[in-house]
């Protein structure tokens, strides 16, 4: 297997059906992030959900992680992780922005990376690839799917 292949991160492995949230609507961005953090932390006992949520929300206070395709990628780099972890939420009705400079969110992809500097380039690569993959057509497709199983299967493809 080539180095490139070895470095590949399977979305199917990252997003098990248990890490997919599907909802008609959500009250706000913060609540959705907390829900996704809970979904990840269920399978990662080394992570403290409150701490993880605080790290992700702290990062959100900086430069926005929402794209105008409707995808938000809240993320954090954590010392406790040795591998990437993620969870995704697909919303039938977008989260309406509360501030003037915010964008509506249709899909939120919570992405957690190990804090070790050696993972940073891959962290950036994945962020870029996610933004590329979740184009408006793909998001529409995800929104049209029936349940978490289908979404996870679609992401794994």
């Amino acid at each position, binding site marked *: 297997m080539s180095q*490139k292949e070895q470095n590949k991160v399977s979305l199917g492995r990252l997003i098990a059906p248990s890490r997919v949230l599907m909802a008609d609507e959500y009250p706000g961005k913060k609540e959705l992030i907390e829900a996704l953090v809970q979904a990840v932390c269920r399978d990662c006992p080394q992570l403290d959900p409150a701490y993880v949520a605080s790290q992700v929300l702290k990062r959100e206070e*900086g430069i926005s992680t929402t*794209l105008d395709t409707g995808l938000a990628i809240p993320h954090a780099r954590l010392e406790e992780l040795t591998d990437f972890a993620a969870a995704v939420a697909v919303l039938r009705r977008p989260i309406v922005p509360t501030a*003037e400079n915010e964008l509506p969110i249709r899909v939120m992809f919570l992405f957690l990376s190990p804090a070790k500097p050696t993972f940073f380039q891959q962290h950036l690569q*994945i962020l*870029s*690839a996610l*933004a*590329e993959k979740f*184009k408006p057509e793909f998001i529409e497709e995800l929104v049209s799917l029936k349940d978490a199983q289908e979404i996870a299967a679609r992401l794994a493809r």
Partner: protein
Amino acid sequence: MKNASETSAGSSRVKKVVVLTTAMLTFIPFWKAAAVVLCDFGSSAFYAGGIAMRAFGPAFPWYILAVMLFSGLLLMLELEACSLFVRGGAYKIVREGLGDTAAKLAASALIFDFILTGPISAVTAGHYLCGLINSFFELAGFGLELPESVVSVAFGMLVTLYFWRQNVKGIEESSSKSAKIIAFSLAVCFLLAIWSFITIALHGAHLPPTELHFSREALGWAGHIDWMQTIGLVGMIMAFGHSVLALSGIETLSQVYREIEYPKAINLKKAAWLIFGFALLFTGGLTFLSAVIIPPDLIATKYYDNLLSGLAMSLAGPNFLKLLMQAMIVVCGVAMLSGAVNTSLIGSNALMNRIAEDGILTDWFRKIHRRYGTTYHIIHLIAAVQLVVILLSRGNVYLLGEAYAFGVMWCFVFEVSAIIRLRWKKAAQKRDFMFPLNIKYENYYIPVGLILLCGALLTVALVNLTTKQVATVAGLGFTAFLFAVFSLSERLNAKRANTMFEEGYRERINAETVDDLKEAFADLDRPHRILVAVKDPENLYHLGEVLSNVNADDTDVIVLYCKPVENVLYRQDMRSAAVDEQEVFTAVIFMAEKYGLPVTPVLVHSNDAYYAIAQAASVADAEEVVMGVSGRYGANPQIERAVMIWGAVKDRELKHPVTLRILWEGREVSYRFTRGNSPI
């Protein structure tokens, strides 16, 4: 093929694209820069010898030669002044070193000489032209002789009016035209020198005498001071003082420095050497040959106002060939002298503008021409004074020459004093060049050479005060008047001055709205491109890094400023960029000038800078995108946002890898986008 700006993601982010242009983004090679200076500095060859001859007799070529050798020291002074990179020439250097009052005095004195350079050059050109016509009439046996003073005044006024109009229109000096004039002058000089040596070989010659015979006017007040006439060295200084008008135009080097291409310091030195060599041969050499070949009585009676024509007409050979040679000299003289008229208008206008930018002059002076965007009130004023001076001179070049050199000498005294002071005040600043003869003491370089130069300049300037009566009376009067105007104007303008001082200098930038990013980059023709995103004029470290490492021969550097907008409802052409982008791009242009490398400044109005940067980089096909670090967010969140946006706008395979870099003080975070390496 769809490009990124047309994709759905982020397509609405770039609202408006503006390409910015300024004359300062074109850089010229050292030889063109030297040509621009020589068109002014070299033109004194046409009148300096004649004026010196009338002042102190046939020993004049020795002193013109000495002044040309001395010009080498002044060029070295300019090299150190330029290496400090204080924008605004002597005025700003003096302000930095000695403060506002000294700067105002130096500027007032320099403007006096700038104003005189125009008339002296224009009237001399008229004399050369008239001399040629009269030579032709004489050879053709027409029995006609045009009155030189009338023709020279009329021609001088015409030339001044022509360049006044050009300057109001804001037509920039062409360095290519200057280079052609200098190339032609060099050819004429070469021909004239060869022919002169043949004449010397045929007729024999003697070296010019060294004894000084001052005219009564040339002694000035010194004629009443007995001890001054008994010391030989004083006489030599007096003669030197009457010859320093040959330095006219040397200060142009500090104006042209901004335009010299990379590597700036090396090219500036090359330009200085070229100027020195040319001036020594052209002004010094031809003046010397004139004194050797033209009989002294003919210089004194016929050729004092057009010495080089006299040289042509005194050569050995048939008359028609001599007339042809004279015609060539006149063409070259008229071109160089007219160029000097233009430079005098440009120089004085630029100097008045620098003063106005400091808030010293009232708004009336800074008023911009509605159509041409030039400071036309200043130009009108300078041209009007020059026309009056031409009329008052009645074509008398000697009178103009006697009035000249007050400003240039005192301005140099101030400038060298300021540079000495800056050796202490700005001891830590790196200098690409230092005037020779320095003693290192702790962190300082004690400028022994500069102190000696200052002493020499001060001595000549003080002696000139006693001998050059016209220059002293007119120079002191004009300087005092202008200084009073500046001081009064500054007081009246005090509030505004403070605001302008805080705002600092703004580069004049033309802005042209284009339809899209593709059009903005249509003129880029180098195979590689680097896009540098800028935001804060105080944070351009990354641009400096790019400019210090880029190969400008094969790489275009695009400097993109994304102006944040919420909404753009109306598209309307901007005639001039608004204040904030002017501040950003003034700093960008200043840096481009410092490195002598061209950049393409582009302004986009966007409600997301990261989208705009990604789109611009994609449309420009940039191989590298460089950003400065944000003090608010830090480099990591910045690069995370940038890679996400890049992924969102990307909808095609990359033609080549693209590197995204965030640079700050010696550190870097980067990411390389490569083809088909999706990690998921």
